[in-house]
């Protein structure tokens, strides 16, 4: 029973392509997030959604568009992929706001842009 699951686990694509990463949580949490982890393991928040509403958009290029069809899903679509987009992308969720509860992470999607 995976709590936060994201697909695919690996994604290799060429510059200029468009790709999507899917995320689902079965924890009944209200808030979901996307984080980007670079090659030095630094984790940076990209987006946060609460009950399908965008809460945080951390100056991410508008080539990145999150979509939340319901509160259990938060997908990430990336247009016109660039070399610098290569990273591991983590989806996470938390019960209500994060001042009250820790984040639960998926196992990541390793995106490689060639």
């Amino acid at each position, binding site marked *: 029973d995976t709590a*936060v699951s994201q697909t695919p686990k690996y994604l290799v694509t060429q510059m200029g392509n468009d790709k999507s990463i899917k995320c689902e949580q079965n924890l009944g949490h209200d808030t979901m*997030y996307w*984080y980007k982890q670079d090659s*030095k*393991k*630094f*984790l*940076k*928040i990209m987006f*946060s959604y*609460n009950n399908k509403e965008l*809460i*945080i958009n951390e100056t991410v290029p508008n080539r990145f568009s999150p979509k939340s069809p319901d509160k259990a899903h938060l997908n990430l679509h990336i247009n016109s992929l660039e070399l610098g987009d290569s990273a591991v992308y*983590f989806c*996470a969720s938390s019960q209500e*706001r*994060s*001042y*009250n509860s*820790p*984040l*639960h*992470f*998926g*196992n*990541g999607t390793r995106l490689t842009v060639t």
Partner: protein
Amino acid sequence: GESVGLHLPTLSVQEGDNSIINCAYSNSASDYFIWYKQESGKGPQFIIDIRSNMDKRQGQRVTVLLNKTVKHLSLQIAATQPGDSAVYFCAENIRKTSYDKVIFGPGTSLSVIP
């Protein structure tokens, strides 16, 4: 600006010894702090948390200490085991009016020598 963490990228300890991982945070308004463990190929996993009205919290083999005066957080692992080898992140929750944001430190890689 927002920043969490000291640049202590690696820590090697002998199996059975105690480990101490340190972290600094910069936002005095942060009210909730969390330690995560990230094993290779997986997402960060919650270890222990502490609220700003506490200075110490203990779990099973782990203790978190919070010193708000100097904005310092530490994670102590007792009797370190090979399974403790991972990257450890401290994180702080920055509380805004209508949302919260969890900022991660740069991470410390712990290697346990058998």
